[in-house]
């Protein structure tokens, strides 16, 4: 109602930064009516008394900076970029956009480029590069990364916590497997067979481009393989385009330049395919979040809006385009392992309105009993929980989820997010599966 009270006050956007490429945050800051709903949703503020919370990080700090030439408060690096504040604000304030921008400014202006913290963050954020190298020698990497003295040294020199085990690298990446399956040509053939079997038009235009992200490629190819099987089952032919990191870990570390370089590659290769009539799908909810929301909020790249508008979370796509619920209701899973699943909805899935999806889909699936472990944050938030100084906060946030997992039937967990999965496993020792693996077990 603020504009209703002063009918003559014409809105004048003010640039936050002198150049015109950074987004204008003024309307967001003006929309904040200080209700503090965001603060009551912030998992970091809940466990860390020194963290001033999203309202401060967003609209308040922004106003402060307008008034005097204050620099960004270093508490911004405590924000884990879970984006829960963003999805809570009743007034549509773009909190995560403000945080991402402030964090980038902080890293740019306050953090020394020769400091260990900067390089530690940069290495963590550029997980894809390390994973790429490690995947060349997966067995050695698996050994070396978790080798005690090496981990001790990493904590002491780099500040990477030695409490966690590094994720294992697969001996065959998803992309290597995909090539062995005949790549796009093999997929086209299998999709045609499936359409014929399903009594659909064999030449139907069912084509999707898969953004697998780093983790499903290097660490959990079984998730990506499940996706391929499920989509081909429904008669879709897949392509697996050239891609870089989605940028999620880079946003969270204030490395917007790194993120933009990767985004340019992704937007260009996904954009070309979308132009040809493909839809884009992702299995990792942080990747789909980045492509759908963060890219257009943060970058100005040609074709970015098209990519954002045509990217889907994989199961959501099938749910809307196919009778996924119906097929699951008629199916059964015989794998004892999947009989009881403790499900955690990742924050980034929540932000896309997907938090109820997996449970709803498995409601009528025989042989699977999935139970929600509550709406708390897992606490790891990508690279956040890997930092030595954040480890404790991360585990404190996760406590509620661990407790609920222990209370749930069964000792297998389920989630869409690879780093939440890491945290779930770390806190409970459970094996963690992806909903796509369950769908694959039911239908293929």
């Amino acid at each position, binding site marked *: *109602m603020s504009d209703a009270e002063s009918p003559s006050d014409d809105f004048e956007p003010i640039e936050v930064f002198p150049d015109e490429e950074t987004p204008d945050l003024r309307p967001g800051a003006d929309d904040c009516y200080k209700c503090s709903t965001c603060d009551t949703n912030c998992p970091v503020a809940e466990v860390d008394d020194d963290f001033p919370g999203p309202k401060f990080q967003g609209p308040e700090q922004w106003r402060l900076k307008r008034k005097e030439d204050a620099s960004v408060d270093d508490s911004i690096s405590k924000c884990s970029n879970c984006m829960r504040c963003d999805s*809570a604000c009743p007034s549509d304030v773009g909190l995560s956009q403000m945080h991402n921008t402030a964090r980038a400014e902080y890293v740019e202006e306050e953090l020394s480029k020769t400091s260990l913290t900067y390089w530690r963050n940069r290495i963590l954020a550029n997980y894809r590069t390390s994973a790429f190298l490690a995947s060349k020698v997966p067995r050695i990497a698996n050994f070396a990364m978790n080798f005690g003295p090496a981990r001790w040294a990493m904590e002491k020199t780099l500040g990477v916590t030695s409490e966690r085990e590094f994720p294992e690298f697969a001996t065959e990446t998803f992309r290597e497997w995909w090539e062995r399956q005949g790549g796009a040509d093999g997929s086209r053939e299998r999709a045609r067979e499936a359409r014929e079997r399903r009594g659909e038009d064999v030449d139907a235009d069912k084509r999707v481009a898969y953004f697998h992200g780093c983790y499903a490629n290097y660490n959990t190819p079984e998730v990506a393989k499940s996706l391929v099987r499920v989509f081909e089952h429904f008669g879709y032919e897949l392509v697996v385009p050239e891609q870089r990191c989605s940028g999620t870990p880079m946003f969270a570390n204030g490395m917007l330049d790194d993120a933009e370089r990767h985004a340019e590659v992704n937007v260009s290769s996904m954009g070309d395919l979308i132009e040809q009539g493909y839809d884009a799908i992702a299995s990792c909810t942080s990747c789909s979040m980045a492509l*759908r929301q963060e890219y257009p909020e943060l970058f100005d790249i040609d074709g970015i809006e098209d990519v954002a508008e045509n990217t889907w979370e994989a199961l959501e796509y099938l749910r809307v385009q196919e009778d996924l619920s119906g097929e699951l209701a008629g199916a059964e899973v015989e794998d004892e392992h999947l009989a009881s699943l403790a499900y955690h909805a990742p924050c980034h899935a929540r932000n896309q309105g997907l938090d109820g999806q997996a449970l709803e889909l498995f409601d009528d699936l025989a042989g699977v009993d999935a139970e929600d472990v509550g709406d708390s944050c897992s606490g790891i938030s990508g690279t956040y929980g890997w930092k030595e100084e954040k480890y404790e906060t991360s585990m404190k946030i996760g406590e509620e989820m661990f407790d609920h997992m222990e209370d749930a039937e069964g000792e297998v967990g389920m989630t869409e997010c690879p780093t939440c999965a890491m945290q779930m496993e770390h806190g409970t020792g459970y094996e963690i599966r992806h909903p796509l693996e369950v769908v694959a077990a039911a239908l293929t």
Partner: protein
Amino acid sequence: MAIEDDVLVVGGGVAGMTAALAAADEGASVRLVTKKQSTLRHASGLVDVLGYAPDGKLLADPFDALTDLPADHPYALVGAEAIRAGLERFDAVAGELYRGGHTEKNALLPTHGGTVKPTARYPASAAAGLASDDRDALLVGFETLTDFDAPLAAEHLEAAGVPFDARGATVSFPGEPRADAKVTRYAHALDEDADGERGRLAARVARVHDGEPRVGFPAVLGQEHPADVRAALEADLDADVFEVPMGPPSLPGIRLEYAFRAALDDAGVHTVRRPVVDYETDGEGRLSAAVVERNGQHIPHYADSFVLATGGLVGKGLDSDREAVREPVFDCHVPQPEDRYDWFRDEAFGEQPYARFGVDVGDDLRPRDEDGRIEFENLRAAGSVIGGYDFATECSGTGVSLATGDAAGAAAGADTQ
């Protein structure tokens, strides 16, 4: 193919959640689509039905004044029985968390500013604080929680003529939280009691406690275990303990939201947290789908019957710009004076016409267009998106949402069976 239910409710505040529960009770499959969080988190947690009559008189019994309401007031449209049905549904949801269901009369509760507010249901945690109770009260504030100035609130209460002596004192909260600590921090510290916060707080209060039979605190006494926190303080202080409802963000509101969510889960209602941005019709005056936006995608959610419960100007169910006030989801007609300057009156206090803005409904709660024709056969409205009442002035916010939510949801559910 596609996402399809019997009833689709748009908006997840009190009105929408009540409508979803009522529809599910009729046997309908129900989906609730809601953007962001509802205003419950910043409302006081008090459930008002009608605190003041149209002439501004404080009401002892809301039901006495129903016949005095204008004909287009939502209560006049749905009638006393619908209000009772809404309250009954509320009592089932809130259970032990709330009091006041034993009578239709208003209770008088002290607020954090030291005023007295008429309300129909109040948190069990506030029960010992009733202003009609003549036992003396000590109000305790925390140094770091500046929203509640206990000595000032006590002074105001006495000035308001309460039938007891009120005294205020300020103590420091154990662990000395920072000055801008979130209210949830206090609540969690007391919930967890990790460093004996409950006992340490009681000990600090004991030093200023002068035998008053009841002691009031700001409403931050636990989020998950409020009853345990109160019991511990009561045992140590040998006095009844109560919470004083606070401004936003509100723990009683958060607790109530969780109670509603649990009820929705039990009723099998699926919730989607994204905005509805558009709709589809069958071309013959009926809605066929509400289009949900998901970070770029526009996904139709099909249903046989729809409830619009998107809230008023605060919940963004109504949208205002320089030209007009609109209902942005289904584009329902919102009556309003032509001239924008007629939206406001000059007196700062007193009723503001814009507070009554909202969609125009008949006694079946179906929104109507400018000419009084039904907008869509299968659309009903509930809660503060409806016009014709000013909840802040008359103290009727949650009550109208319960009554219209229950009626709209039940009718929508029944239609599909």
